[in-house]
């Protein structure tokens, strides 16, 4: 492969979201963002909830909302496997906002009752992430 571009694939269990050459990949690692340029050393990293940026060209970027997965870097290829991924342009803002409201309520209720609200917390994080990324376009 050329040393200017790297082949990148974004795969979810339901579909292959993106496949093509990119200049740079920035992924949300567990301990901060991970940036991958062409000719990166082989690596496997766990990804959290956040924003995946694919730099297609100097002035063109693709924003993708992802929840949980991992990134695998080979010599000339970056494979991103995630449970859930959505392009910024695909995000249904109304649904994301509803999800945010609902989970906020759930957390408040659980706190009142002293129950565990771990799952609601994650859902809230996901909803907020989607709202944030939908504003990128």
């Amino acid at each position, binding site marked *: 492969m050329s040393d200017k571009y790297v082949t990148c694939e974004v795969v979810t*269990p339901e*579909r*292959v979201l993106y496949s093509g050459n990119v200049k740079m990949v920035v992924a949300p690692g567990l301990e901060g963002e991970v940036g991958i340029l062409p000719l990166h050393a082989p690596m496997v*990293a*766990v990804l959290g909830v956040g924003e995946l940026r694919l730099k297609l060209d100097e002035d063109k970027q693709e924003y993708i909302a992802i929840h949980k997965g*991992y990134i695998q870097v080979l010599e000339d290829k970056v*494979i991103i496997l995630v*449970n859930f991924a959505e392009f910024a342009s695909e995000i249904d803002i109304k649904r994301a906002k509803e999800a945010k409201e609902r989970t906020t309520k759930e957390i408040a209720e659980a706190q009142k009752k002293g129950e565990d609200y771990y799952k609601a917390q994650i859902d809230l994080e996901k909803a907020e992430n989607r709202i944030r990324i939908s504003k990128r376009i």
Partner: protein
Amino acid sequence: MARTREIKRRIKSIDNTKQITRTMEMVAGAKIRKSQERIENSRPYTTKMMEVLANLSSYVKAGKHPLLEVHEKQERVYVLSITSNRGLCGAFNTNIIRKTESILEREKQADREILLSVAGQKGINYFKYCGYELLSEYTEIGDSPKFEDAREIAAKIMEMYINHEVDKVLIVFNHFKSVMDQRPIEYNILPIEKDMAEGEKERVIRDDYIFEPSPEKVLYELLPTYVETLVYRTLMESVASEHGARRTAMKAASDNAVEMIGQLTMTFNRARQAQITQEISEIVGGAEALK
């Protein structure tokens, strides 16, 4: 007169049924294609994941993870049986139910407590009717299983396994061998078998990977996802099999209808002819009497 009219009505009714079964056959045919595509779409994900797991297992002594650990006491078994929500698909559900029952019998003889969960309305109805206690019921899995559905099921299984509430988890589902051939199989989902996590042996295992944050952490994040993917796969295969079975059943029904219509048409023609002959002989007889 009465006889021909009755036959005609039967032909009409069978013809109606034939139209319905033909349509269902065609719909199922289209759905098979879709669900096969879906299986294809998930393949890259599964194979890539296997690759990473294979690489990881050479780094981490994996025995420590609670999902890989084989429990010492084998006292409780969790069985998840995957059926369909709708009927008219031949022996699809019966096969699964029979297979599940034989497994339940086997585990009972081994003196293990059984926790049964069923996906699909058909199976739920049957096992409830037989008086089984169902731990969970899943009915939302329609024609296109979502990864979320699999997640929900997998999360429950893993939680129970890690808390030592169960010692073994089995899934019974229809394996999609081909469009014509589906067979019920049982699949051992937990504990994760080690050779499986290790993947294919021939694959080149590289040893210069960087792991972020650490190999252990990556493995721990990966194993639950692996289980979720397995469950997702069984759901998809089951759906594809359902459509396959339905198409076969509906094709048989349509063919039978065609045959029946053929036979009835013949009987109808015979009856009509007999009637005409009788009328002629009556007229001739009447004319003869007038002479």
